[in-house]
């Protein structure tokens, strides 16, 4: 008797699961995965895109640039997001720049230092310049905060500021823009770098080489710390992926990220 009940319950459960599945599948899914720097903007694009195209679901996931590229290569997602350039063994993927992002060097609001030159910033992060006094601030040691190896943001900073010089080993290392900002927001002697779009009232972005970290200065080319945000796909995107990318590149899609603090692609610096 008990066994009969068990069997019946199992059958019912299976049937329920099956219909549940079918319910979910009637809405086709596009998966976009990768860089956690691009993720919040992709979420925004997906949200608006799905309002316009109720039949199509866009599933945005993080994981990091490398994970996104891997997932795209293996076919686990149709679009990968990367904030770093493709490595030689990843060159077979098709890439499209979807926006530009400024990098801000940030300090605590109480820190009197408001400007620096790029060579100075380079010395700070290489560990050669260790006291705020040398930059016109208090006579205190500089707490340098960096991102972890492999991060797209760190990769961009390395390329744009450090060149071949290494970020010194003693630097505090954090694994997201948010935690870097959090540390700088609470330590008056800290310096870090994050996405320009994520600078808020808790921190101050330094003026670099005489140009404030603003959208206008990025557009006119005076502020130099700019990196591309890219979508990658296996071959030319088709179908739903193409539809989503076209939306992202449209005036409406670009206007969305401008509100969120990114630099739209069409007026961005030429690459």
């Amino acid at each position, binding site marked *: 008797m008990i066994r009969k009940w068990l069997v019946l319950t199992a059958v019912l459960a299976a049937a329920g699961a099956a219909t549940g599945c079918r319910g979910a599948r009637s809405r086709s899914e596009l998966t976009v995965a990768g860089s956690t720097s691009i993720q919040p903007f992709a979420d925004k694009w997906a949200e608006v895109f799905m309002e316009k195209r109720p039949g199509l679901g866009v599933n945005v996931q993080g*994981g990091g640039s490398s994970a996104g590229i891997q997932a795209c290569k293996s076919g686990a997602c149709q679009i990968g997001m990367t904030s770093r350039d493709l490595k030689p063994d990843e060159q077979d993927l098709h890439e499209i720049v979807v926006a530009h992002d400024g990098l801000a060097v940030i300090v605590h609001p109480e820190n009197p230092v408001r400007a620096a030159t790029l060579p100075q910033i380079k010395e700070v992060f290489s560990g050669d310049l260790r006291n705020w006094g040398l930059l016109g601030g208090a006579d205190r040691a500089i707490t340098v905060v960096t991102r972890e190896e492999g991060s797209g943001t760190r990769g961009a900073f390395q390329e744009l500021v450090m060149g071949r010089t290494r970020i010194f080993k003693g630097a*505090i290392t954090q694994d997201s823009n948010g935690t870097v900002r959090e540390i700088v927001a609470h330590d008056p002697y800290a310096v870090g770098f994050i996405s320009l779009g994520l600078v808020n009232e808790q921190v101050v972005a330094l003026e670099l080489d005489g140009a404030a970290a603003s959208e206008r200065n990025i557009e006119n080319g005076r502020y130099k710390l700019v990196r591309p945000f890219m979508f990658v796909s296996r071959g030319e995107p088709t179908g739903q992926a193409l539809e989503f990318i076209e939306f992202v590149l449209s005036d409406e899609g670009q206007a969305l990220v401008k509100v969120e603090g990114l630099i739209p692609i069409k007026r961005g610096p030429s690459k």
Partner: protein
Amino acid sequence: MKSDMKGRGRNKLERTDRLVRLSLLVVAFSAVSTLAVITIFMFEQGAPIMFKYGLRSFLAGSDWYPTEKIFGLWPMIVGSLYVTLGAMVIGVPFGLACAVVLTEFSSRPVRRVIKPVIELLAGIPSVVYGFIGVVILVPFIRENLGGPGLSVLAASIILGIMILPTIISISVDSIQAIPLSYRAFGMGRAIGETMAVIMIAGNAASVPRSVLDPVRTLTSNIALEMGYASGEHRQALFATGVILFIIIMILNTVANVTSSRMKGSKG
């Protein structure tokens, strides 16, 4: 006829018995085989790169620049040991004192309240400990002792508190004459903890020169960089896991040998 029925009944009973025993064995074995699968996978992913770049440079190298294919784990090995040692230095005296009070100087009702409360400490998620560390302890160290605050000291204190419940219950049990061999558990928790440590240790991949310097542990090294790692960088993170695995095995073996020796000398 009757005895025949009885016989058949016993047979049936034996069969069920055997069946139950077999299924229990399968379940028990699945736990063991999970461990085996994890171990094999980790070594398979992590070991080749260690031999490719040389075990020596992997263990003794003090530079960790994985994107430039420089994989020195020495700062992280030292970091893990410092932080674990620090946690024991802080956790053990407090834990022992608490256990002595619990077993020797407190009345039964008091014990009935305190012991569950201590055990509840063990149930607090590590991210909460990390958060408390970031909000209270790190600024305190930065303002009163100097340095960035995110440091060996901060990690040791928070870990010391996190291992208290384990230390206390083990000490209570051993004061009540239960074998000492579980002391390694407290150490295991300290060396393996990741979340709270990432939040408060600062994670600089260099050997700390004072307790106020930031430090990166082996577990933090894996968790920090796994998201973005690819290719050999990723393999090097698995290799980090292999090293951690071996260190924990060594610690456990040492703990077991010492405790059985102590038992031997007692008896």
